[in-house]
């Protein structure tokens, strides 16, 4: 069922739109990693009567921001423009999905640009380490690669095959979120158009292979070692998701968080340290990350392992829980400052099948959660850590040995 949602802000001079489709990189077929992101890029290269140049001219002449990107779960078209220009640009946004041009030369250009971007991203040891971690956690499964794909796979994608899938985009389960003050006739026009989108999304079940190993590394002549510990956890709408968020906030949000206090403030081991929870339809990864000097890497890994054991073996204190709860309340207040933030939040909730008042419901549950519940959640969800490392070969060998001993 397609849906249009309005976040009405009568005085706003700005209009924000998010069009979300269940065409994220998780539906990239085997051997075509990067296909959905390539498709997303090509959608901004012409539609209907407009070729790529005309399309860019039109959008830019209104001074608008228009992007289309594939995340892991969804493909999102994002528009930000003056409210007065919405009547010209919102229909264009729908044309992108209904009448994409997908011209051969534009597909080839976009593909070359993505391949060059991947090449450049390889300069960043954090990217290399994260890619290795994805493979460790998800193997060749749906979440096992960055949406931008790989050079080898992109090279093999034919423009004609992209044209074929582009014809399926006007599909069921599309969600359009508008934020601002669009004329009601325009809102109605958008609703009428997307309600006619009837293509069926034939997404099979998410089959994610089990990890074969729990250690992986990329050799790199760097001064530092980048380390990422990753856990494959649960789907965003799982009842345990709130418990997992509390654990992540406790570990990695703000300068009072546990990892920052122990590893940076007490031990001085790293500058950049944190813990992220990347919410997904399934198997959301939780990632702890740091980078530190080669000679201190074993100490940093020990500290990481110590924090992992602590989380499994003992409940966090009531004061630590209260702190995490306060931070979540603060995050909620700060995440609705701008129209874009509010549109992103609503689009994410509805796309994942969560209710609009999901945040309020979570806030109501927070006071009733106990440290022992969190410990049990950690024992269920964070039992199997995986380590990815990027750095010089000698450091990798030492860390691998240390990891194997710790995990045995």
């Amino acid at each position, binding site marked *: 069922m397609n849906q249009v949602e309005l976040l009405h802000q009568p005085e706003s001079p*700005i209009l924000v739109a998010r069009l979300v489709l269940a065409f994220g990189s998780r539906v990239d077929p085997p051997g075509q990693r990067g296909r959905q992101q390539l498709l997303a890029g090509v959608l901004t290269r012409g539609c209907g009567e407009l070729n790529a140049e005309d399309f860019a001219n039109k959008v830019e002449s209104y*001074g608008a921001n228009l992007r289309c990107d594939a995340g892991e779960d969804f493909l999102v078209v994002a528009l930000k423009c003056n409210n007065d220009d919405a009547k010209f640009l919102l229909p264009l946004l729908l044309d992108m999905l209904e009448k994409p041009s997908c011209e051969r030369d534009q597909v080839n*250009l976009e593909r*070359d640009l993505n391949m060059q971007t991947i090449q450049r991203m390889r300069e960043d040891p954090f990217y290399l380490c994260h890619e290795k971690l994805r493979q460790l956690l998800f193997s060749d499964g749906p979440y096992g690669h960055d949406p931008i794909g790989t050079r080898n796979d992109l090279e093999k994608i034919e423009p004609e095959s992209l044209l074929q899938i582009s014809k399926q985009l006007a599909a069921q389960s599309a969600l359009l979120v508008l934020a601002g003050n669009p004329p009601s006739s325009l809102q109605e026009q958008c609703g009428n158009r997307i309600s006619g989108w009837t293509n069926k999304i034939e997404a099979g079940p998410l089959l994610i292979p089990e990890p074969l190993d729990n250690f992986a590394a990329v050799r790199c002549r760097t001064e530092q070692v980048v380390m990422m510990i990753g856990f494959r956890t649960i789907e965003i709408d799982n009842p345990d998701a709130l418990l997992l968020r509390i654990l992540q906030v406790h570990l990695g949000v703000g300068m*009072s968080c546990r990892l920052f206090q122990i590893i940076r403030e007490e031990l001085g081991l790293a500058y*950049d340290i944190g813990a992220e929870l990347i919410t997904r339809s399934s198997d959301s990864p939780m990632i702890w990350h740091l980078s530190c*000097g080669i000679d201190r890497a074993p100490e940093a890994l020990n500290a990481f392992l110590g924090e992992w054991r602590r989380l499994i073996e003992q409940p966090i204190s009531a004061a630590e829980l209260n702190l995490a709860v*306060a*931070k979540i309340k603060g995050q909620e*207040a700060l995440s609705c400052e701008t129209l874009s933030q509010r549109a992103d939040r609503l689009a994410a909730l509805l796309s994942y099948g969560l209710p609009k008042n999901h945040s309020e419901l979570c806030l109501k549950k927070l006071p009733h959660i106990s440290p022992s519940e969190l410990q049990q959640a950690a024992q269920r969800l964070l039992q199997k850590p995986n380590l990815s490392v990027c750095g010089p070969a000698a450091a990798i060998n030492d860390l691998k040995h240390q990891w194997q001993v710790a995990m045995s």
Partner: protein
Amino acid sequence: MMVASVICSLTLPNSALGFPAPQQHLLGNGCPITYLPVADASVVCIEFWCQAGSAMERNTESGIAHFLEHMVFKGNENLPPGAFDLQIESIGGSSNAATGFDEVQYHLVIPPEGLALACDLLPQLVLQPGLERESFQMERLVVLEELSQSEDQPEEVAFQRLLHLACGNHPYGRPIIGLRSDLLNHGPADMQRFQSRHYKAANCAVAVGGCFESDELLKMLAAGPIGELDAEQDPALIDLNPDDLHMHWQPGEHHLSLPRLESARLLVAWSAPFAADPEALMGIDLWAAALAEGRSSRLVKVLREKLQLVESIDVEVHPLERGSLVILEAVSSPESLPKVRQELEKLLTQAQQGFELQEIERAKRLLGNGYTFSHEAISQVTHHLGQDSLQKRLLPLDAPLQWLKQWDQDRLHSLAKEWDLSRACILEVLPE
């Protein structure tokens, strides 16, 4: 009720961008407090700014401004390490800081009921750093890790080299984070001297935006360490090398090869007017947007879309107090770099003949909307007010939109004539 130490109150000309007119009070010691009450905001943002960036460092002090910003969060005898973060984050607030060439800024976002706590803690934290020896040694390790992290990013290394080649011994030619050799030598006493020299009322500014009661706010800030800041600067302590005040621009052509670089870079830097001349900088912003913002811009259209020589190309204007910088970066394959350079030269020469009206209108819309879109949140506006208050050029929020209107085709043509590669510092970077 007016606070005793507040000697001057100004209301700026008008409201803009959907916000009411900001107001400013000068404390008795001259420190400006700029504030923007917005009753329906869900948060309060407080920013403390000081003209104590890396450009104020003396020869062997490199990195001390940024290191001090780290040390500030180590607290003092009344606020032990971590106590500030714990108290602020326990009420759902968050804090951070950033050091630039010209200034350092500390910011806090808190729920409205946390205002009194924030007004109590932030000034203590920023203005009364303990600089305790053991914390100092520990934080030095963290700063050195930060330095190593940036040295592992080839793009960052190339960018620093460009600044060094272009600005020479001027402070803008040094990395803000400092040189490793200097960082290893700094002690708490050196840092204390730097702090005492620069954290003076005349060099500081506070900006507050969001949901709060103005009188209450002013009373709290005036009664604490901000109101107690020294009013007078000691000229003997500000004996900056005159060469540091004005940049001696060094045009030229250079080559660099870097390990672990995967794509080639063409970096081009030009010197531009001082940040104190924002109207002139707006013209350069317009020139840059016509050249390189969006697929319809000249450089992107030709070099990326038509000739397919670059992965990306952009031009950014960096307003700076002692001479702004304009930096162009093109990313390409190593084989394409010579051709990129050749075509760029051609396109800049063409731009010297001026732009079509349609190109200018497009660039104006992009810039104008970009400015409006980036001033939507109270935190964004508070940041803007803090920086402008510090540099004593607080203007209506929509002033940049007015300047943009002043730039017509003829005026932009006159400006574009001066921009070519002959007065630029050029760095071609290739994989080793």
